[in-house]
């Protein structure tokens, strides 16, 4: 039961082809055709790949590069990959990266400047990013993209770098059939079923010796891509006696849909933790002096891993650099973290010098003041911060502790005889 609400998403039906909301099934092998169709449309397909012992999002040229038969085992402070005895494509969940690495890149040049007799000229960078197709966006991450949309597109200023990447992005979501070890999307109302703005959504059906994908159409663009995929695959089927062409997709039966629902329900039951998300804005505003902060501060290394892996953290810094002649200058933007000491530096010192204040800033922002600023929570329950924290700090536990009254520091004295 979740007390978290997210803004509703409207979808528009396609002019022709499948309706939004319609579902089809396809053989898992046909995913190759979807990838090919996306690439034929000029998209750079970003998908899960296996590298250095983790599942990371990278550009692929064919579906063969997807990690088959792998799942992740995650726990506080721990991430491992484990071989499965099947060829599941999406049994893993989320890894150390999120889609923000593509939409809100870690390092960008903003502009270059050159000294002139009159002063200087400034030229913004010609930013022509690739058109991305994201293959495998989980519910938590889909909501994280919506959260970043609100921060970077819907305020008084629009971030042109984010907009240039976000607007054309094609999203193929995946409804999770297996929970990660640290996630809690059910508590945060973000999954396992992806409920944001996607073009297509897949549910993996791996049972009875068949490996299929249930496909849900989320937009007119998604319907068109399915049609393009089918057109690519219009070749005579080997097993069709009359040479009829075989389409990649077939309409989903009720049994198919039920199987998809069951897979998602299984993932929901596997959730390893819950976050009581009710009233967090008020709770965090009212517990700034709670002794729990000192407790978590004694464990936190202020390493900033959590902010790097978090799909909604958006803080950046700027670096002004110049060449040796001093006549050319550039401004770069790169990711930054509120955990760094100089994040809050003003003349003479940092406002948040202690590790305690920096951990408190991160958590009270993510789960509290984000509501004041953007009208939603900043946390989507992906669990990355828990897995990638070297000391395994679990924010669901921290919140639970903050809800409890501060324990007495000293036990009351025994009654005099």
């Amino acid at each position, binding site marked *: 039961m979740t007390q978290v609400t997210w803004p509703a998403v409207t979808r528009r039906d396609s002019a022709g082809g499948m309706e939004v909301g319609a579902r089809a099934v396809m053989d898992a092998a046909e995913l190759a055709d979807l990838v090919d169709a996306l690439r034929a449309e000029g998209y750079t397909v970003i998908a899960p790949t296996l590298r250095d012992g983790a599942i990371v999002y990278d550009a692929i040229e064919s579906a063969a590069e997807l990690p088959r038969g792998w799942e992740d085992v995650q726990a506080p402070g721990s991430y491992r990959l484990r071989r499965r005895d099947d060829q599941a494509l999406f049994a893993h969940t989320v890894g150390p990266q999120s889609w923000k690495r593509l939409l809100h890149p870690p390092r960008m040049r*903003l502009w270059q400047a050159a000294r002139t007799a*009159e002063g200087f000229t400034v030229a*913004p960078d010609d930013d022509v990013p690739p058109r991305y197709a994201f293959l495998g966006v989980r519910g938590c991450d889909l909501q994280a993209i919506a959260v970043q949309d609100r921060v970077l597109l819907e305020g008084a200023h629009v971030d042109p770098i984010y907009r240039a990447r976000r607007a054309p992005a094609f999203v193929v979501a995946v409804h999770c059939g297996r929970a990660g070890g640290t996630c809690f999307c059910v508590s945060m109302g973000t999954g396992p079923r992806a409920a944001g703005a996607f073009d297509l959504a897949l549910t993996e059906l791996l049972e009875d010796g068949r490996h299929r994908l249930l496909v849900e159409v989320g937009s007119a663009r998604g319907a068109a891509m399915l049609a393009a995929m089918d057109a690519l695959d219009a070749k005579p089927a080997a097993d069709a006696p009359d040479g009829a062409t075989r389409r990649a997709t077939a309409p989903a039966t009720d049994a198919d849909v039920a199987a998809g629902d069951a897979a998602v329900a299984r993932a929901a039951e596997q959730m390893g933790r819950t976050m009581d998300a009710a009233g967090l804005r008020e709770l965090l505003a009212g517990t700034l002096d709670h002794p729990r902060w000192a407790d978590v501060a004694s464990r936190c290394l202020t390493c900033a891993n959590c902010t790097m892996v978090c799909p909604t953290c958006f*803080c950046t*810094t700027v670096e002004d650099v110049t060449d040796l002649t001093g006549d050319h200058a550039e401004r770069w933007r790169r990711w930054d973290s509120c955990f760094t000491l100089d994040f*809050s530096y003003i003349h003479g010192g940092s406002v*948040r010098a202690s590790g305690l204040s920096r951990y408190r800033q991160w958590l009270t922002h993510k789960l509290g003041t984000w509501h004041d*600023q953007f009208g939603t929570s900043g946390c989507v329950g992906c669990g990355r911060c828990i897995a990638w924290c070297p000391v395994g700090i679990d924010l669901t536990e921290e919140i639970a502790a903050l809800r409890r009254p501060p324990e007495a520091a000293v036990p009351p004295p025994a009654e005099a005889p």
Partner: protein
Amino acid sequence: MEAVAADPMLPAPWRVARVRRDTADTFTLDLAPAGGAAPAPFAPGQFNMLWAFGVGEVPISISGDPARPAVLRHTTRAVGTVTRAMARLRRGGVLGVRGPFGSAWPTDEAEGADVVLVAGGIGLAPLRPALLRILARRRRYGRVVVAYGTRTPADVLFRDDLQRWQARGDVEVLVTVDRAAGGWAGRVGVVPSVLRLASFDPARTVAMVCGPEVMMRFAAQELLRRGVAPARIHVSVERNMKCAVGFCGHCQLGPDFVCRDGPVLPWARLATRLLVPEV
């Protein structure tokens, strides 16, 4: 704001028209737009991001007259790499300007009320535009008080202005210093103490406070003690800024982005936060 580039992250070149050394560590730059750009109007309390070519960028409050935006004036202390580079600029030098950004002092809202301006140190600079606007429309306000404190007599800013304002007869100007040797005929003491001498009706007063955070806290306490409503005490806070447009996240103070929701904020909104260390 025609003079601001369409992209608020791009600095526009402005030329130094005049440099003035105010005190040992404080200086004032008057800027004029280079290349014929139109002057950008600003509201009292707003700031610009000033960029020293190849060195870096800092937020500096505008200290000039809002009725004359063609002279873009900033008064600042030379305390870091960028401000020290700015202090070395001479007439004709060029500075990058982005802005103006931020919220403004409530000079319109204060019409009909008594106005108390409380400044500490360099805090007089962001308040100067507010006072100039108020004095340009003096009849719209009740009593006007300027209470200003700084370190020593040698650190008193805008001496000519202070004398001129005092000489008008319709502004109560109270100046005090933390420490003075003989020869200073003025007051010695802290700003909250000198506020006690000011005449204003707390029930119809709007206060605007700017200075070191500790000084603002104590000044606000004194104003509250006198009976000024917390919602009518406005302070200008300062935080680390990198973008000034609400994206980099550095300037957050609780739920507020100081670059966008501030720097001028009502005391009622800030009080609990400023009393918790390291928020």
